């Protein structure tokens, strides 16, 4: 009987130890970026870059859960990317903490951190981003910035850049969305 009590006591203590986490929940926060972002460039450098200034405070889910926010468990970029050029394009996304307004890719790469990608899109092709694959394309450094800024003031800037695979690139990002899964304990 003593052994039975030991087993029950151990299990009950273990359950009580986990009891502090019983009120948490996960929620999905969606930030809608520009409907269209045209990104172009040549061997000489970028001629147009995509920019989405994210302010999560505009997102009701984020505002309502921020006080109990514990972690960003998942982050993804959604939308579609169309290759308007004649060579393979290689879109990638960078992030800078806070609001920035860089106008060329060299400045973004020098001051931001890689966030997502790259992926290859054939000439004339269009890729609808998959939520699962997109989440897997988020890099560790970019994920850190997103987590830090989400826990902070909720502001950061995402840039869409191209990588030259031939002599130029030309692609369009449509219906851009930044989607976060937040862990919160109200």
């Amino acid at each position, binding site marked *: *009987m003593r*052994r*039975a009590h*030991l*087993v*029950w006591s*151990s*299990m*009950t203590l*273990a*359950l009580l*130890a*986990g*009891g*502090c*986490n*019983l009120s*948490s*929940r*996960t*929620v*999905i926060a*969606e930030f*809608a970026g520009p409907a269209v972002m045209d990104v172009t460039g040549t061997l000489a450098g970028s001629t147009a870059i995509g920019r989405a200034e994210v302010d999560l405070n505009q997102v009701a889910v984020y505002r309502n859960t921020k006080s109990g926010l*514990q*972690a960003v*468990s*998942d982050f*993804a970029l*959604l*939308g*579609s990317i169309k290759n308007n050029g004649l060579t393979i394009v290689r879109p990638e996304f960078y992030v800078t903490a806070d609001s920035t307004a860089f106008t060329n890719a060299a400045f973004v790469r020098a001051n931001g951190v890689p966030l997502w990608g790259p992926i290859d899109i054939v000439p004339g092709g269009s890729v*609808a981003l*998959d*939520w*699962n*694959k*997109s*989440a*897997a*394309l*988020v890099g560790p450094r970019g994920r850190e910035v997103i987590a830090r800024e989400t826990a902070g003031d909720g502001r950061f800037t995402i840039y869409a850049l191209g990588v030259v695979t031939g002599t130029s690139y030309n692609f369009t990002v449509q*219906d851009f*969305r930044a*989607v976060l*899964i937040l*862990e*919160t*304990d109200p």
Partner: protein
Amino acid sequence: MRFTIGKRDHARALVVLALLAFAAPVHAVTVGLGVFGGESLPLAQADNDPGPQWGVRVPVHALANVSIEPFFAVADGGRHEETFGGRTYDRIGFNVVSYGAIAAWGRMGFGAGFPLYPYVGLGSYRLAREGTAPRTEWGYSAGVGYAYGLPVGFALQARSEVVVVPTGETSRRFVNLNLGVQFRFHPVP
């Protein structure tokens, strides 16, 4: 489905085994083997939908009122659909691989007795899905089972349980509902 077992998992397994050692036989031991299947329902998780669960159990009745049951279980969370900007996307659910043991107050279908039995459990839970770094954590469970004895050593099992997997300051929680069948081997002297 992929999963790996690391050093921390081994440590956890040792603790579970140590726990089982507390329940070392006082009298004869009755050992069984069971399989089960059912549904795993995520609680308060906007990104994870219900999905199937299956597993195996090894019930051991060694004490007067307590049965110990090591288990191995796999649950696949369902795909969660959301519409963003007029497009529909889906996020794959968590694949949850767990092993551990429960302690039940009752005979769990081993011989005559009250058919309902409450139980608590402790185990290692590995949550993984594409695009999210996998994590392995201790998980805790509590539930109620119902055993219905059948001839020649078989018994049907129906269980409902709540599982809590702490993930830092928060947790992932599930309600598991499953049905199973177990076979009782001859008592070990």
